[in-house]
């Protein structure tokens, strides 16, 4: 499993596609309205949106990922790092921010490789 993270619009998906020679049809984009993840795709992008969908439904996203760890093997997982701004006013956003951090920490531990993308430049941190 490879985990790629970084701030919004840093070119994380472009980096993954070009580095691993993949195309858009290999990508599943998570949706903030749905807790579905298509494990058939090689890249699972915007996982923070899956976390938000879970938070809205009162489901523990980290436990979902733990339960599906086997299916995540061999995947490239892309996350927006949303941990560095002001503490959000709204409860849902606060819960989302915290749970995203927990999920990223967990997947970072499980991943064989962790890459942070800054300004389109990938930097291996694990």
């Amino acid at each position, binding site marked *: 499993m490879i985990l790629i993270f970084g701030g919004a*619009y840093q*070119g994380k998906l472009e980096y993954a596609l070009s580095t691993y020679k993949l195309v858009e049809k290999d990508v599943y984009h998570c949706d903030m309205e749905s807790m579905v993840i298509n494990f058939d795709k090689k890249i699972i992008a915007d996982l923070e949106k899956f976390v938000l969908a879970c938070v809205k439904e009162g489901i523990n996203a980290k436990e979902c990922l733990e339960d599906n760890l086997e299916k995540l093997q061999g995947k490239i997982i892309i996350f927006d790092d949303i941990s560095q701004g002001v503490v959000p006013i709204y409860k849902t*956003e606060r819960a989302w921010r915290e749970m995203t951090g927990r999920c990223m920490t967990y997947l970072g531990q499980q991943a064989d490789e962790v890459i942070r993308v800054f300004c389109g430049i*990938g930097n291996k941190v694990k």
Partner: protein
Amino acid sequence: MNIFISGGCKNGKSMYAQKLAKEMADARGRALYYIATMIPTDEEDHKRIEKHIDDRCGWGFKTLEQGINICDLLKTNIDPQGAFLLDSVTALLSNEMFKSDGTCNLDAGRKVAAELSAFAKGTGNTVFVSDYIYSDAGIFDTYTEKYRESLAYVDRQLAQVCDQVIEVAYGHTYYYTFAN
């Protein structure tokens, strides 16, 4: 050398950028320019500008005021071989995107990216300072989101034309290079 610097707010980017620009000017024995991008609109802005002028006092910067159309500077009587400090890309994009007459140019990101890339090529000795505003856990209004997306676009384009890409985090500096 063109240098791109980004990082969080109040992390020491400006001071670090000033140092780099001054070193470039000194090494080449050329003029040292500060490009002031902020267009003041109220008393608070004027005070902020005064503070920045005080911070730069004694460094030998010549201040060039250019809040929009950055490449117009290249047509003026400046030494393009001098060292330039452009602080900040963030303010420049804001001026280009949100006009004083209340209109908004949603395509400003492309304009600013193209113009700053041309400015980098035209001078070869510019330090660009931007702001890393991409790790918030907020769901923003359309205009704010468009602004973040546009600034990130400008940052990424500039990173490609600059010789050095540096992140400043609490006084620490990280250097990045493209794999190829």
